[in-house]
């Protein structure tokens, strides 16, 4: 028995539906070839197992689900593109709504960011800074009215100021304005008017200004008595390791503090 014979016999065995379809030649070969006989036996067992797998049944609601699917397809084909759009899953509608809300939120945020924050002041006499022209108009003022604590250099600066070129202006007053067009106008946002101290009071060593030791910025307005007012914002400060006592305010001299 040659290898070619075994190959041909195995091919014949493989293609035969049953042992009845095997030729006499194949049967004779199998009687004399243990390998081919084993092959034939394994083949029969395998085909028997495959045939014994049986049929897997469809679920009981197969017909119902199929009809529902066909009905959906049929109804989806009616009404045109717009109707089919309306029949889209809810998730698409929810997604569209979310997109609209997000876009609206971004638009509102951008609009709010573009609007400059405006500060309302309780001081009726406070004049807003004019951002149009950078003009320092020193007006000679023998005794400018000072509110709050006053830096001596500021007073000196007012004394050394150049007189205004504008005639009939009267005593000098200072109104420093911001010339940079990109800066926005600011206003004093104090809730209450600042205490007013005159120069005479300052020269006599007083008054004592109570400086709150908290995290709020202190603002001092300097009024020249002619309606011009200058506001100076003082940053918060601390005395290092100094600890606050029971008092909220610490008296600070009006001279040479800063």
């Amino acid at each position: 028995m040659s290898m070619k014979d075994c190959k041909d016999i195995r091919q014949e065995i493989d293609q035969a539906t049953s042992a009845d379809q095997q030729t006499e030649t194949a049967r004779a070969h199998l009687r004399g070839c243990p390998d081919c006989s084993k092959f034939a036996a394994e083949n029969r067992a395998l085909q028997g197992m495959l045939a014994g797998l049986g049929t897997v049944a469809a679920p009981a609601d197969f017909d119902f689900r199929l009809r529902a699917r066909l009905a959906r397809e049929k109804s989806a084909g009616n009404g045109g593109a717009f109707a089919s759009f309306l029949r889209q899953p809810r998730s698409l509608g929810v997604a569209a709504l979310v997109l609209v809300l997000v876009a609206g939120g971004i638009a509102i945020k951008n609009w709010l960011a573009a609007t400059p924050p405006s500060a309302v002041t309780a001081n009726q006499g406070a004049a807003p800074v004019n951002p149009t022209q950078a003009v320092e108009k020193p007006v000679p003022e023998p005794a400018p009215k000072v509110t709050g604590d006053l830096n001596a250099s500021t007073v000196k600066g007012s004394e050394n100021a150049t007189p205004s070129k504008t005639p009939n202006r009267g005593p000098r007053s200072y109104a420093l304005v911001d010339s940079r067009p990109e800066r926005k106008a600011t206003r004093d946002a104090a809730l209450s008017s600042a205490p007013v101290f005159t120069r005479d009071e300052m020269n006599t060593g007083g008054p004592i200004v109570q400086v709150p030791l908290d995290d709020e910025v202190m603002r001092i307005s300097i009024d020249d008595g002619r309606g011009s007012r200058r506001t100076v914002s003082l940053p918060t400060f601390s005395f290092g390791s100094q600890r606050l006592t029971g008092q909220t305010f610490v008296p600070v001299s009006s001279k040479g503090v800063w």
Partner: protein
Amino acid sequence: MLSACESLPALMDTLTSIEELSVGATAMAPEFAVDSASDHALLEAIRTGSEDAFAELVTRYRNPITSYIYRMTSDYDGAVDLAQETFVRVYRAADRYQTNYAFSTYIYRIATNLAISELRKRKRRRLVSLTGFFQSNDGGEAREFQPSDGQPLQDTVMVDAERRAAVQRAIGTLPDKYRAPLILRDVEGKTYDEISTILGTSEGTVKSRISRARGFLRDKMRAYL
């Protein structure tokens, strides 16, 4: 027309769906015995809008098609979905069906294409079998889902059930081009001529692939042979 196990609310919903289907029918099919009609006669009736004919066709082929696709994909729920898709395509293409071939060949061809497409999608997605999560602690082989085949499970046939599960797992390891002809031949009992028509290949190619597939299975199932 409807199975007796459907509840009344579901029946009402079904009737609404059927009414919608019947609205578009151009003509009512004449009454004829669908139970004894041939597949081609049923298809002719479906073309004229006969819902009874389509229902009869579904009744005849829902189990074989579902079972065939399950053997191909080893996924029961997916097999049911693809089986329904098969019947949807048959319904859609009823007007274009030609009677040159047997209807069983036609519907099995549709089912084979859907199953092979699903297998190719899985390869692209590289899905991990959920049954892999239920491996035993000793690292044994994962058990594939084995749906009920309608036979009562007795203690004496537990070994057979295990063997069937092993065979299904082994089939799942076959390459796609060997899997379909093997199942059609040894599980579904189709002839070589029918298989060559279903797969669109020559009979010689079908025989060759079946032989190779059996060789693979013999090696994997040697412990059970």
